[in-house]
């Protein structure tokens, strides 16, 4: 345990003031821990890592970490990340966004980034709510749930991010949770290494703004809910549809090897410049 703590400390910014802004019980720290462990295990140099984050609680993650970090405007992190990756494809560009940031205001950029298969590692920390701004409904808030802007229950259905991203054309699509940390670490390593648009949805609890308004007594209840609701994809597929109920599959849903955009563009450049004498 001390080793892990030491490891994490090697990756935190010395000159940034702590404590951090996250609530007790928030899952964002678990995601950050998994990210750091993966970067370390993969031996990626700190200088090669760029974290680009959206606006929201998840957007606050990068400032604490000793990488190249960019805190973008709301919904547009993928566009900045695209520019960085196209300008310098050698960098590992990791995008961290919340569900509202990525799929509501950022929805258009999200589907296009997936479609053009730009080489980004994209983490969407889905806590089913707009947490930072006080608990408004997002496009992943489950239908019927309470939020400050759906006091009578959310009327609209929510996105299935895995289906959406797969349909949009991403190379790799995966889902994990902040409870199933060992699985998360494996998925994270995948997300950081596979070429192309590499998407990982992480189900993470927000007790402060979502959980306690929707019948979860405390954060622990939310983690118990993740434990009992999420199940491995293989097992899920074997279940008869009528037995699936509210279960949510986790694992790797799509894995393709199509050429990432930045590689295609470099090839075009080589081809055009090689063709001239």
């Amino acid at each position, binding site marked *: 345990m001390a080793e892990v703590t030491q490891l994490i400390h090697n990756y935190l*910014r010395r*000159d*940034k*003031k702590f404590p951090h802004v996250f609530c007790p019980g928030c899952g964002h720290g678990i995601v950050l821990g998994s990210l750091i462990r993966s970067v370390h295990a993969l031996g990626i140099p*700190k*200088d*090669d890592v*760029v974290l*680009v984050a959206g606006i929201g609680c998840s957007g606050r993650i*990068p*400032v604490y970490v*000793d*990488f*190249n*970090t*960019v*805190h*973008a*405007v709301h919904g*547009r*992190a*993928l*566009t*900045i*990340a*695209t*520019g*960085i*990756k*196209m*300008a*310098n494809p*050698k*960098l590992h560009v990791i995008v961290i966004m919340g569900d509202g940031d990525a799929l509501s205001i950022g929805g*258009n*950029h999200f589907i*296009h980034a997936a479609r053009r298969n730009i080489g980004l590692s994209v983490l969407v920390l889905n806590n089913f709510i707009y947490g930072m701004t006080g608990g408004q409904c997002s496009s992943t808030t489950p239908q019927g749930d309470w939020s400050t802007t759906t006091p009578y229950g959310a009327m609209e259905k929510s996105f299935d991010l895995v289906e959406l991203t797969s349909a949009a054309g991403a190379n790799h699509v995966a889902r994990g949770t902040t409870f199933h940390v060992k699985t998360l670490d494996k998925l994270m390593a995948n997300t950081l290494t596979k070429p192309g648009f590499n998407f990982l949805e992480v189900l993470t609890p927000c007790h402060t703004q979502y959980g306690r308004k929707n019948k979860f007594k405390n954060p622990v209840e939310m983690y118990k809910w993740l434990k009992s609701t999420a199940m491995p994809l293989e097992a899920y597929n074997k279940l008869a549809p009528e037995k699936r109920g509210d279960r949510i599959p986790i694992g790797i849903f799509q894995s393709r090897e199509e050429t990432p*955009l930045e590689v295609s*563009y470099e090839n*075009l*450049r080589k081809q*055009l*410049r090689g063709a*001239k*004498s």
Partner: protein
Amino acid sequence: MTAKRNTPKEIFALGAEAVVEGALLAGCSFYGGYPITPSSEIMEGMAARLPKTEKGVFIQMEDEIASMGTVIGASMAGRKAMTATSGPGFSLMQEFIGYACMTEVPLVIVNVMRGGPSTGLPTSPAQGDVQQARWGTHGDHSIIVLSATDVQDCLQMTVTAFNFAEKYRTPVILLLDEITAHTREKITLPAPNDIEIFSRLQPTMPPEWYKPFEETVRGVPPMPPLGAGYRFHYTGLTHDDHGFPTSKADEVASAISRQFRKIDQFFFDIQIVDEHQAEDCEILVVAFGCVARSAHLAVDQARELGIKAGLLNLKTLFPFPRGAVEKVIGNCKTILVPEMNMGQMSREVKRVNDGRCKVKTLNRIDGHIITPKQILDSLRKG
């Protein structure tokens, strides 16, 4: 494309094509954009030329907001980056323009002005985005806004835009109009050795000592690209010298003041104005863009008729060249401001004039250029 050209060359080109040439001469190696009339030719030119250069990158994005995101990201990664648009797209870009001001990211944004507001007149010229270029994004910010008069100017002012962006770590907006972008004229492509190109300063101290937003002796913090060994934080939140968010009163005041000082200290470099017969004029024309061209002839014709007219052709619109105006209004009784909008530049002139001279406006908002005759008629009326 083959051997490096080291002599000037004449071509017959659109204003849009001149922008492309200027950008490439200035070292632009990244373009992210979205099509919109009448700016699409700039994008198309960059799409064709960039992949033929050593490291040029072009990408068409899903909207103007995304375009701004990519050029900001590319500039953070060390590229000289540009995008081009027109009114409706320019409105969408405003949030990111403010972000680029706050994060002090060099950028060139070309706005080919067309009739507005809203969808307006996609294929007709106007000059209606002048105040928006200065204040379109929220909050107190400094910004540089330039203008081009003819096709040769499109090339020259694009080079200048990049130089200012790099020197002052700021987005620079270059305002053109639909006519200038779509007119073909003979221009000279300078030899690369014949133009001055400026690139952003790099830090010389070790990374541990580097503070990305610290005020330096030069007034502008050096800017290393992402991944070069200097790991720091960019954010749109108000931040301290390290780049970390702050809401402490003294740090906030200091940060914002420094951003203004960064530009204010260099008015002498940034404010470019062409004077024509203005030294002893009694009636001064203050104009910009294609209107300055008409004004040039009108002033000459007025002088032939014995009217002591003069012209200030504003190449820099903001920071507004107060000094240039004050220098020549000594003998003036009247200042005439012809513009293709309802009076956006005349507000600046009136502010600086401060009641000294009579300020006359000549506004045209019907999708056509103000002609030399219109200006001459106004000069003759006095």
